[in-house]
């Protein structure tokens, strides 16, 4: 990252800024293989023009794909980079959604400003869970259970919180909008599509930058062998706290997006454990700890699930649990047969392997 900024304040001419930006970009993407850059560029270009190529239904599917690519990358920071298995990520998304929605519905505060209020709350929530777990050596699956317990706590708590309409659900005011209002996140799916595309792309760059930074290397050291990491002087508590807080804040933005895209929030849904599990399926299927895995996983999983749904509807079945059973089978198959995920295998095939992490 841009750590080597000189001490004297540089004059902020456009050329100077451009130069700094170029150096920053070079430090993040400098050592990516040309073939990988071309493929990434092609994918981004395709996604950018997608709204002109596909119909509304497919656009909605693509929004869901990018949503899970976004949350999957956020979760991957904790599990893939720092090795901490969280199964309660719905709590961060739920808090983000509820806070931004309440601020908008009651005080007319724009979601982007609302997100500024969400950031400290999500960070504090992640810090609380992290502190309880890491201070008292609650590790591995017990950490996972603690995260579930917090999400369930929030679910039941919000179910009884009258200020947010408890279990009756919180609804955002919906009206016919003549034009897209990006500042208030009111508009048509195409606008939401570009918002989530930008967010997912931004997090991808951020993850790459994090992985190449000192923090990233410390995370990997902790993930591989925490005792050894501590022995060489890494303050594992601090770095694990950083991981959970960064991941929490990023995930909370997904909640804000969700609230404004769907316009309704029910505690039973947004804090449900199945939400947390949906978030982690993408990265697991794509490949935990890889950069592109969560994105590929989101495409594969959502794509297949939608195809299944369409087929079932076409065949005249209405099975509410079918998608979840399908998720379960996918998870089972990947865990049994491809424990590293699909992406490392695919990447070898097309010759764009990520550096071994």
């Amino acid at each position, binding site marked *: 990252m841009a750590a080597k900024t000189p001490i004297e304040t540089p004059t902020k001419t456009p050329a100077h800024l451009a130069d700094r930006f170029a150096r920053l970009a070079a430090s993040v993407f400098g050592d990516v293989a040309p073939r990988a850059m071309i493929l990434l560029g092609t994918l981004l270009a395709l996604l950018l023009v997608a709204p002109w190529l596909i119909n509304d239904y497919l656009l909605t599917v693509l929004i869901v794909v990018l949503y899970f690519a976004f949350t999957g990358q956020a979760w991957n920071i904790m599990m893939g980079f720092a090795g901490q298995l969280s199964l309660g990520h719905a709590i961060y998304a739920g808090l983000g959604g509820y806070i931004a929605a309440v601020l908008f519905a009651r005080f007319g505060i724009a979601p982007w400003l609302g997100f500024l209020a969400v950031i400290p709350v999500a960070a504090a929530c992640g810090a609380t869970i992290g502190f309880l777990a890491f201070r008292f050596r609650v590790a591995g699956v017990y950490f996972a259970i603690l995260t579930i317990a917090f999400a369930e706590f929030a679910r039941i708590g919000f179910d*009884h919180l009258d200020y947010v309409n408890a279990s009756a659900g919180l609804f955002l005011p919906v009206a016919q909008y003549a034009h897209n209002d990006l500042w208030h996140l009111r508009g048509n799916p195409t606008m939401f599509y570009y918002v989530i595309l930008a967010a997912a792309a931004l997090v991808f760059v951020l993850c790459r930058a994090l992985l190449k930074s000192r923090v990233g290397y410390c995370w990997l050291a902790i993930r591989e062998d925490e005792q050894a990491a501590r022995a060489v002087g890494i303050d594992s508590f601090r770095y694990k706290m950083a991981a959970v807080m960064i991941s929490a804040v990023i995930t909370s933005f997904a909640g804000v997006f969700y609230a404004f895209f769907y316009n309704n929030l029910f505690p039973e849904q947004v804090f449900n454990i199945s939400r947390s599990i949906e978030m982690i399926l993408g990265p697991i299927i794509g490949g935990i700890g890889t950069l592109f895995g969560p994105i590929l996983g989101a495409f594969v999983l959502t794509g297949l699930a939608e195809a299944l749904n369409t087929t079932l509807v076409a065949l005249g079945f209405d099975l*509410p*649990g079918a998608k979840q059973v399908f998720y*379960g089978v996918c*998870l089972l198959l990947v865990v049994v047969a491809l424990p590293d995920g699909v992406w490392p295998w695919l990447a070898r095939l097309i010759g764009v392997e990520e550096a071994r992490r």
Partner: protein
Amino acid sequence: MPIDVYLNVTVAGILTGLVYGLMALGLSVIFGVVRVVNFAHGEMMSIAMYLTVLLFSSLNLDPLVMLVPIAAVLFVFGYALQAGLINPFISRPEHSQFLLLVALALIIVNTLLIVFGPDARTVQTAYTFDSFQVGALIVDATKLYAGAAAIVVAALLFAFFRFAPLGKAIRACADNYTGALVVGLDVKRLYALTFGIGAACVGAAGVMMTLIVDVTPIIGPTYTLLAFVIVITGGLGSMAGALLGGLLIGVTEALAGLLFTPSAKSMFAFAILVLVLLFRPQGILGRRSI
């Protein structure tokens, strides 16, 4: 509120807590020996509950009669699961075993949802509304039977691990994996047996639970979580701790339901979990003493 209300609610909580304890005992046994966290525990219990409901509604069989047969079915299920799916995972990383069981849980919950639909099912026996009165104390017959059955099953299990040669062999596996291999124990088979025993426990608990609560497909995850809260509270791998934790959570939930609102009662179980993690992370009764 008069004092006997508290007394009645506490006794009801203790009896429910015994069933919780039996459920958690299954989880604790599996963890203590196989070192695999059974994330599909509550889901396995809901299988037993649906079996009970199904047999009751079609053949009018009393849940108390079905206790042993259904526990046996769950034993076979658990044995097959461990032998077929989980044994190859023993040397895999912890999170990968965990995700395997998450997948299984997801499949069970939603298969039940597809087969039985989202509506709550219930078992109404001849004694559903009976109660016993001792002085000011009024006890529901269903809860009393359920609690008593839980005690019997738990006592049998303790005796099995203490005295039966097979139980001792299983404890040997838990104490020292390599040592057990060296003296010629068939560890994989013993693991499968253990998982079967744990599943039978939760199966028995499930049969009892149908006397106390309604069954819906989505209760699986709730009870998985509850079982974990109980086991962590009581002490990981400790059989007595699981029972004690069950009692504690049962009473807490009952009192919380009385003093606040029943739908918020699990919040108090989570509060206990956090307190235990803060002040006694190894659980009330220490660790690994199966």
